[in-house]
């Protein structure tokens, strides 16, 4: 471990700045090129809006879009919470009983591999729309939590487990003081993936539900604006979705880093 910092040399301040500045420069250059092409070729906004037009639409339509953003974020959050709790709980159940694991795991895989866009219309038939949307987010997001937590619970140091046995630890004690902490880095990794996936699940369900007319999330706005040929608004809504995804990932990565920074290699690499 002592050799680690010298191998992956600590990035100097200048290097770090470059890593931050370069993507920003590329982004700015891309926007500029886009803007110029639209202006020079006089492309109408219903074909391709300029970045400035998208930005203006974002401000002009903020009332509608922010409302939709809040709806989508709420759905994502509900799906994420359901997926996290469900995934962890199911993994704990699997860990306690092989029988349960053998009986249920194949179905978890089936849920995972069946495209959610194909399940969504069915869910919309049988469930209330808001519930169906959350369930979609859950279906997409719970599997990484489940499989990561299972992996983590099975990665407990054999000797540490022996130590707990030696001192007569009860199953709840072993779970709380050994298995869960040992699995924590894996669980957090699963949650980081689940955050982005719940957003995807929510969007897919909103689009599937969109024709039903009652939705008001960002994905619904995109579909609706498409029908009305309001292309700038489509882009503005897409931009917000993108930003939401980035923020969700960033927040979860930060939480993971803060929780693990004192002990886990994954978090140490960034600091040292």
């Amino acid at each position, binding site marked *: 471990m002592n050799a680690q910092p010298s191998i992956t040399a600590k990035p100097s301040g200048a290097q770090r700045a470059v890593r931050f500045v370069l993507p920003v420069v590329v982004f700015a250059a891309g926007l500029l090129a886009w803007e110029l092409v639209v202006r020079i070729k006089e492309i109408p906004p219903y074909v391709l809006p300029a970045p400035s037009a998208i930005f203006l639409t974002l401000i002009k339509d903020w009332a509608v879009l922010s409302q939709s953003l809040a709806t989508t974020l709420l759905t994502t959050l509900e799906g994420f919470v359901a997926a996290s709790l469900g995934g962890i709980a199911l993994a704990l159940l699997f860990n306690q009983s092989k029988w349960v694991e053998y009986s249920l795991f194949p179905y978890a895989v089936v849920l995972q591999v069946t495209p959610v866009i194909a399940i969504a219309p069915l869910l919309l038939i049988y469930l209330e729309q808001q519930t169906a949307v959350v369930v979609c987010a859950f279906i997409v997001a719970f599997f990484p939590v489940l499989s990561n937590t299972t992996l983590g619970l099975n990665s407990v140091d054999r000797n540490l487990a022996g130590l707990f046995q030696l001192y007569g630890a009860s199953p709840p*004690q072993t779970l709380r003081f050994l298995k869960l902490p040992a699995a924590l880095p894996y669980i957090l990794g699963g949650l980081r993936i689940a955050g982005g996936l719940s957003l995807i699940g929510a969007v897919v369900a909103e689009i599937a539900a969109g024709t039903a007319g009652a939705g008001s999330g960002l994905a619904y706005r995109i579909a609706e604006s498409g029908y009305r040929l309001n292309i700038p608004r489509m882009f503005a809504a897409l931009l917000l979705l993108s930003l939401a995804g980035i923020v969700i990932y960033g927040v979860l990565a930060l939480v993971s880093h803060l929780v693990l920074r004192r*002990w886990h290699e994954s978090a140490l690499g960034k600091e040292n």
Partner: protein
Amino acid sequence: MSSVKTSAGVEAGLTALAVSLRGVTKTYDNGVMALGPLDLAVRKGEFISLLGPSGCGKSTALRLIAGLSAPSSGTVRVARHEGEVQPGHVQPGHGIGFVFQEPTLMPWTSVRENVRLPLKLGGIPKAEGRARADAALASVGLADFADAFPRELSGGMKMRVSLARALVTDPDILLMDEPFAALDEITRFRLNNDLLALWRGLRKTVIFVTHSVFESVYLSQRVVVMTARPGRIQADIRIETVEPRGEEFRTSAAYSDYCRKVSAALAPSYSGQSVL
């Protein structure tokens, strides 16, 4: 195979014994016979080393004594155990401290919390547990590192934490499974001396598994040399020298005589094996 019935005379003798193994064997699920039959008696307060080639079942013997696994046949008796450990039954050891080859610390919590773990699992109140953990850390010279995390410590210091954790319950018996094998020689010598000093002060029964002839002679009152798998006792050599031992013992003639004697006893266990 059932337990061996002990006669009244042996029963009386047992009071001075900390650990007694009788006809103990261990066969793993895959059919490999790892150990035995093994008979071993360890007196209270004795420091013995189990020495043998790798794979001879030394660690298995230790795990059987700790109650971490059950013997396939024979009986394991440990003083302060409730009764005997029967084949197929595992009883968690009370009054036993275990030091593994690896420090085996929980990386997610502080050194103090690592040492307090056995007390926490035993339901000792937090304040008392912390005080006892700090005392145990002080006894291994790590009083200043209670709040550090394991990754911030060197290999030798981690091993000391592991030792402190084994001592924190004030066990009668200390089982050590090649604890210093992964350390450099200088650190190992220093820990050897510290362990001897601790043992002189606390007079616990120590069963020390090692594959180092020198370490076994330097530390123990008795060196039990084991054969290759399945491990049986090849020789039982008493190390008699002036106490307390110090660094000067390492360079004495008596020390090299004993090392030669133990090496000679060990020779048959590896001469038949291929070097690979």
